[in-house]
């Protein structure tokens, strides 16, 4: 049990002493997840609106596919992205393998179904009188979309929180696409996996606590936004 206590002390020491390796992993984690979340929100919110607002043929089938993608295994995404970005792959020339944008691509794919599905659910759950109210006040189609999304902003916030949590804590994509290269693509989760593999439980726990701290900060910020609304 000593190593748990040691982990706590080490976590504080790593943060207070600004351990370069730890801060490099934190920076990589934040950079990759920020890129991934930006891409998934930019793409996922409009797609979620379309899926939730409109009735069209094959909507139910599409919804089932999106819901299925919620449980995509990270190692599978890692494998596919690796195959696409590797030097011999179709997008190998882009040089994204073992890079932070490469990791972000995979994480965006992980987050996208979450954002789409939860945004669609939020839009579907909006008051049925909302579209009539907006149209009767003279809103055009774009204004209806923007106003509807603003009305269900708490649902979208929940989607963002859920997706951020998944992106921050995944290890499969970061490991396979990033390659866990120290100072370069090593994220907190891949560092934990490495340290634990080496028997350095204390460091592993310390990095785990740092990850929790980041998640806590993100959630406190979002909770503040939620309360403000």
């Amino acid at each position: 049990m000593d190593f748990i206590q040691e982990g706590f002390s080490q976590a504080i020491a790593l943060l207070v002493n600004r351990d370069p390796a730890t801060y490099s992993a934190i920076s990589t984690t934040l950079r990759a997840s920020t890129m991934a979340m930006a891409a998934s929100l930019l793409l996922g919110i409009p797609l979620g609106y379309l899926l939730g607002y409109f009735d069209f043929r094959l909507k139910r089938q599409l919804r089932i596919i999106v819901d299925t993608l919620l449980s995509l295994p990270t190692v599978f995404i890692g494998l596919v992205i690796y195959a696409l970005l590797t030097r011999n792959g179709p997008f190998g020339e882009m040089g994204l393998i073992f890079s932070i944008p490469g990791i972000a691509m995979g994480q965006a794919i992980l987050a996208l179904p979450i954002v789409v599905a939860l945004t669609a659910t939020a839009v579907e759950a909006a008051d049925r009188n909302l579209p009539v109210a907006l149209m009767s006040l003279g809103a055009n189609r774009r204004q209806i979309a923007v106003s509807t999304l603003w009305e269900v902003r708490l649902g979208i916030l929940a989607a963002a929180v859920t997706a951020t949590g998944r992106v921050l804590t995944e290890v499969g994509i970061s490991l396979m696409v990033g390659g866990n290269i120290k100072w370069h693509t090593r994220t907190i989760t891949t560092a934990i996996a490495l340290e634990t593999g080496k028997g350095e439980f204390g460091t592993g726990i310390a990095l785990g606590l740092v990850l929790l701290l980041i998640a806590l900060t993100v959630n406190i910020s979002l909770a503040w936004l939620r309360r403000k609304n």
Partner: protein
Amino acid sequence: MYLYQIRDTDHFYGDKQVLSIENLAIPSASITGLIGPNGSGKSTLLKLLSFLEVPSYGTILFQGLKVAPFSNIVRSRITLLPQEPYLLHRSVFDNIAYGLKIRGDTNDLKNRVAEALTLVGLEPEHFVRRKSQALSGGEAQRVALAARLILKPSVLLLDEPTASVDAYSARLIRKASLQAREEWGTTLVVATHDWQWLYETCDSVLYLLHGRLFKGGLGCAVYGPWRIGSEGLLLKELHDGQILFAPKPEEGKQMAVLDPSRLKMTLPGMDDLQQENRRMLNGFVIRLFLERNGATVQTAIKVAELVITIRLDRSKVEMLRLFPGKKVRVLYDPQEIEWF
């Protein structure tokens, strides 16, 4: 000049026909009342008039033009206050200013919002910062109306605007709507059961029944179960044991309607059953309402579970000395009962 012209228009939801209007014209700057039982198509007609929906068949002309949903003329000139108006999860100010903001018309918003609030009887300083969720039902309804009045619309369509508000709010909503007509020449179409709206305020009243305009007045709908009786008639036993007779319907028709223009009302002992085939129902007056013309009185008579509303000359009401509670008889010819 007619603002709206509707001809041979049918509207369906799935396979179900919800509206069928052969001919209807609504003049500019008029107030038109719509009345009919639930499901008679009032809200659907208002949605078509607001061009939120397009009729399945036929066309609705607005100022003689075919217009489409989301067209500039629709978005800038026609507005609908739905039965359950939705307020955005924002402040009262933002709700009322919404329509102007999306038009890019943001001049002097503060004063214009205050004016709109005053028009519906809400004090701007108390309400402008309030969250929409913190409003009572009547206040929310008035804020929703203010959000439409601030647009100074050419057409204001109101769907049961006073159905779920207190008498004070109802009075203010009516006053504000009428002011819109007086100040900006706004055409009003109001679906309501409020007799004050219908018979004191409206220039004309349209009776809707089963999606169709009913010319005879406020038809009294009677639903089954029916029994087969003698003389080829159907019998409906009312809750108090009285029997209503009706002819057999065509296949698929389920609702019998007593056309008030074909009914007669007398007092017990003064029955005029000489006309062949007349039958009678006993009831009592529950409401009298003098119409705007001052010459006719809408008289509601309760017959068991039915409420039959007949328009009587004022002189007849005076002669019969009618008052709420007075026992009366309604005479009808079963063959004149229509099926829908």
